[in-house]
């Protein structure tokens, strides 16, 4: 498989990315680069994602403040998609949780009618997802700075 070969090629770089980033997914984006020197495409994707994520976190904060579960559901879904596409597995998982809580569900998908509980779960998940994101961001920025 081409992607496997690529992964092997990049092995020296990959360990830096740690477990915050799904290498298979991320290497697919790296593969799209026309040149491995400047990494124009992947860099713009990842930095674009940074903007998007920070924007979304801000929206999540205010949605949490106004106790808007529906909006939190939407935001969770939104960031879940992009973080998954970039390969930020942990961020993606947390976003999925936020999505579920916002939908008034438990993690396993069963209904959770207690909105207070959902909101407090989102609050704590939001804290952890931000730190997961910060880790990934640091790793990725380091990766792109070193290339």
């Amino acid at each position: 498989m081409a992607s496997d070969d690529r992964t092997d090629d990049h092995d020296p770089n990959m360990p830096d990315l740690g477990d915050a980033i799904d290498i298979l997914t991320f290497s697919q984006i790296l593969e799209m680069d026309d040149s491995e020197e400047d990494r124009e495409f992947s860099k713009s994707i990842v930095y674009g994602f940074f903007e998007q994520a920070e924007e979304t976190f801000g929206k999540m904060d205010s949605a949490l403040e106004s106790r808007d579960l529906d909006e939190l559901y939407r935001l969770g879904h939104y960031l879940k998609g992009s973080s998954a596409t970039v390969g930020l597995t942990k961020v993606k998982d947390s976003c999925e949780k936020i999505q579920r809580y916002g939908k008034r569900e438990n993690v396993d998908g069963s209904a959770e009618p207690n909105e207070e509980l959902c909101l407090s779960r989102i609050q704590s998940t939001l804290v952890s997802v931000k730190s997961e994101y910060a880790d990934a961001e640091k790793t990725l920025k380091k990766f792109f700075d070193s290339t």
Partner: protein
Amino acid sequence: MPEADLAGVAQGAGNNSSDFNEKFTKTILPKHFKHSNFASFVRQLNKYDFHKVRHNEENGQSPYGASAWEFKHPEFRADRKDNLDNIRRKAPAPRKAQNAEEQFSVQSQQVVVLSETLAATQQQVQQLQESYYEIINANKIFVDEILHLQKVVKAQHQVHNELISHLSKTEERRDNRQSNHTTPAYNAGQNLLSDGSEAPLELRRARDILNGLSIEHVADRDLNRMSVAFHQAGGSPESVGSSSMMGPPGAAGVTPFLHDPLSDMRHLVYPVGQNIGIDPFAPEHMPNIPYNRPGGDNGLPPTSDFSSTPSMAANTPPGLQGPSPWGSKKPVVLLVEDDRTCARIGSKFLSQHDCGVEVARDGLEAVNKVSGRQQPYDLIFMDIVMPQLDGVSATAMIRDMQPNTPIVAMTSNINQQDLEMYFQWGMRDVLAKPFTKEGMIGKLRKHLGSMMRNPPPEGLIDPMYANGGSAQPPTPGPYSNQGMGMAPLSATSSGPVTKFDTTPIQSPATSSSWHSPSQLPHPSPTLAQEHGGYLAAGSGSQMVLTPGGTQKPQYAGGMMPQMAQSQQRMPLDGPPEKRQRLYGPPGNYHQ
């Protein structure tokens, strides 16, 4: 010679002027000059260039008396008979020339008047032309607006349906849970239903009302045709482009009220007017047309935002499969995705596979793009959860316009209910999110195999292996196989039923993979089981058609389902597939 006699007579006239006058007029004039009137005789003299000699104080008295009329001619002398030849009636030439001049000026005046009239008429025609175009534009706006409103109504209709079914399902589940708490509650959703006890009756009533409404109106077809006609007049399709200037023979029959005036305007009527030589609906002028197409405000900027991405397609990276995987025509794919990151990566995947890519940021933009396009997109990737208009509603609308364009849902919400709904509303396939390059290309290969230069041979054996197998571990196999796409299609009866009589639905290997939970991306094992159950129940009726033992030979001899389908669709589809049919390797279509 009369002149000589005249002079003599005049000289011989006596002093008694009154007597002489009478005598002269009555006797001399008729006798010598064939005149009976003194005045006319003087005029005659004048014509011969004899002019009366005027005597005033300085010149002194006339030798013949004060009342005598004395005439002189520059050449006339009493003793010079030889000079008489020089005395002749004045040539009429100068007078004639003056005549012609007058005539000419009259004519030129007429010309001026005529040309003024013509200019006025031309101006009128131009004004008529302008108001004609204004009316056309207004009409187009109206039609677009009506279509847009219809879409909105349809979407709301759908939303109502969704809500009702959701509510009734919630109701059922609530009942189930009350009776049996061990049942896993999948996708419970919001508790919109506060007074659950009365709901079913109301829901039923609401559904009846909705079902009673016939959304399909007779005028819709005409409206749609008008809209299409507008766009036909507007976009210049590669094939018709030049010939449309002459009035396309084919299209004129369909939309005579549009094409004939337009072509007449250009070729038959006065060659004046602001639009001459310019097709006001040509695509390059479209941005200048001073009206907004519905949704156009948010439609253009994001597209241009993304459009930088497809342009990168030119630099095909090394290591891809040859120059282009496609045949004579590259497919154009619409990627509907609200997430910037996903959209960019997705369009990069596609453009690197040498597809034309357009991106819409929400369902509404997607619908507008489809309706504004002359040739249907070859494939549409459709996100589900989007602002403004969700992917399912957009799909339903696009289905009305483009019944055959494959639409692939891109979503991470893969559970039984969702899938059921996607296919019910016209989706043909599902690409799990986060999508991978292989997953996406697999969908291309699967749905656009007929456009490829070298249609994948493995596709003839089983399309699933082309995309769902070992090539793409992160993408779930179950949803990318062909059977999944076919079963719900038949359920919605969007295609001829006979299709399924000859079409093997599933190979044993494929169906076994459906039940393999290891391939499901979903974390919940409950869902996987449900999924399997759904397949058994939902598509069971189709599976009956193909007993497991006879799978292999049927596949070898027959076509894969998708091929059968695409071939049946061809006559309905636009040029791209037709062309493909003409130039593509014929062997692939052999039964």
